[in-house]
């Protein structure tokens, strides 16, 4: 018998879902609201929710004080570059793990994931020294490489999961049809895995966009992305809440908009293969 859902139940479930959704979204909403307040209203007690004098002043100050476009461009280059580079390396890696697994494939996958359990600060010192030696400090290239390496385990793992869903016989058919390994990956595997690759791409752009530890530690002025832009407004002295919120809003807006427009792709990618 199909589960019958009563009207009341439906309403309760919907309300609960909205409550959870709002709870998660609240900090972002609060940041956006604060960005339109004056500094005094931003710290007023009790806090004001909507009844304040809406102002764009903070945005004006932030734009005047720092070069937003440069930070934005750095973020785009670093997040986009590290993701694309990661995908290029991860597709062949995931292919080999999914279709020609060895006895140690599972171990390698787990080992790769275990690197994500290491606190990043644990390798800060060696990486910092390497960056100095190689002259990569405060360069977009250096940051792109580091973020790619940081996220590579997740990219490989995700792609591996998607590739596992593709029947091996189709790749064998391609081989029988005269396809070289390159042709097989390029014309058969990759197009079939597009939904998976797209959601991996999106997720990693988001992760790289929001990454703050490495971007703050390895950049100064030239290569600093939007995370550093936000950080520059957090100060132990003075009233900066509203300006900080304005900077945060400007930093998260692009990725929020990207996420909104691609949510269908993201969800279908993340549940890929769950239902045949």
């Amino acid at each position, binding site marked *: 018998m199909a589960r019958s859902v009563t009207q009341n139940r439906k309403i309760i479930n919907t309300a609960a879902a909205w409550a959870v959704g709002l709870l998660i979204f609240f900090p972002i909403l609060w940041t956006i609201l604060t960005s339109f307040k004056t500094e005094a209203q931003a710290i007023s007690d009790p806090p004001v929710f909507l009844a304040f004098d809406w102002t764009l002043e903070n945005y004006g100050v932030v734009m005047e004080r720092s070069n937003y476009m440069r930070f934005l461009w750095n973020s785009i280059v670093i997040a986009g570059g590290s993701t694309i580079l990661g995908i290029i390396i991860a597709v062949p890696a995931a292919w080999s793990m999914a279709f020609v697994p060895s006895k140690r494939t599972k171990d390698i996958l787990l080992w790769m994931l275990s690197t994500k359990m290491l606190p990043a600060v644990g390798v800060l010192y060696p990486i910092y020294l390497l960056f100095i030696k190689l002259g990569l400090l405060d360069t977009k290239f250096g940051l792109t490489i580091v973020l790619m390496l940081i996220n590579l385990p997740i990219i490989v793992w995700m792609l591996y999961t998607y590739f596992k869903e593709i029947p091996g016989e189709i790749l*064998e*058919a391609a081989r029988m*049809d005269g396809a070289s390994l390159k042709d097989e990956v390029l014309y058969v595997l990759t197009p079939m895995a597009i939904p998976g690759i797209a959601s991996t791409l999106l997720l990693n752009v988001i992760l790289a966009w929001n990454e703050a530890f490495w971007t703050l530690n390895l950049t100064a002025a030239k290569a600093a992305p939007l995370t550093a832009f936000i950080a520059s407004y957090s100060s132990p002295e003075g009233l900066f809440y509203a300006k900080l919120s304005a900077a945060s809003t400007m930093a998260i807006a692009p990725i929020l908009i990207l996420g909104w427009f691609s949510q269908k792709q993201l969800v279908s990618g993340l549940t890929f293969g769950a239902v045949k």
Partner: protein
Amino acid sequence: MGQIQLNQVTKSFGDVQVIPPLDLTIEDGEFTVFVGPSGCGKSTLLRLIAGLEDITSGHIAIDGTDATDVPPAKRGLAMVFQSYALYPHMSVRKNIAFPMRMAGIDQAEQNRRIDAAAKALNLTDYLDRRPGQLSGGQRQRVAIGRAIVREPAAFLFDEPLSNLDAALRVGMRLEISEMHERLKTTMIYVTHDQVEAMTMADKIVVLRAGIVEQVGSPLELYQRPGNTFVAGFIGSPKMNLIEGPEAAKHDAATIGIRPEHIDISETEGTWQGTVGVSEHLGSDTFFHIQSGLSAEPLTVRAGGERKLKYGTEVFLTPQIEHLHRFDQHGLRIA
């Protein structure tokens, strides 16, 4: 041209040897069927020939040239898979064109071959559809089309009809046989269905546990099975196999007699038995008779009109000239 020679080929997965040393020659233009129960190594053998699995030792030659270390893409063979294995993101036209695209054949020639194949396989109206929009039978036709356009040295079929319903299976069986008559290309066909083997093959290779039990034409295998396994496997319904004193009377450990070679009578005969279940097929009737000669009931074929009630006492007389005799190892006694 498409002569395929296997020379002392073996295959092991880890410590398990699935194909012990095996020699086999498939002549150019021959329709060869590998048949055997599931797990007998027939698909593995086909995949070894295709190059999709590496052989553990031995040699494979295609048209006299050693192909042991040649990758599948370079062997010049085409394969049709049980699951069809079509490219879901490509239209039927692109699916069929794929091997030609890989071979770098020019566009005009590609179109000519696609049109010819589509016409022969009744796919002309479906060329712009995706595989997901086709029925099982149509998908299998596309898979065959994709194989034909390569103009391969040999076609390899891996249980291509197993996913189709019974009626479609008979139709496709005829189409594949028809195609073989037309193209005269070597074909190797793997199936567990001995009816497919009997109806399509020029040569049947019966396999069990990776070992070739017998090689021969369908009628050779039917009329002169080399051992009790082949005797029991080829033919439907199966041959009746009788062991014990009745076999000893014929100087054999086991005797075999096909259902159509036993005469049934209500008055007299050599063996006595009781009628069990009767199967009326219209053209024939199969009686299952409990006789005490063997653990399983004996199957007897009679005319379509013949009727015998459940429990009737009957007499059976085997036609001595059609009796098969096997020794204690199950091997045929000439």
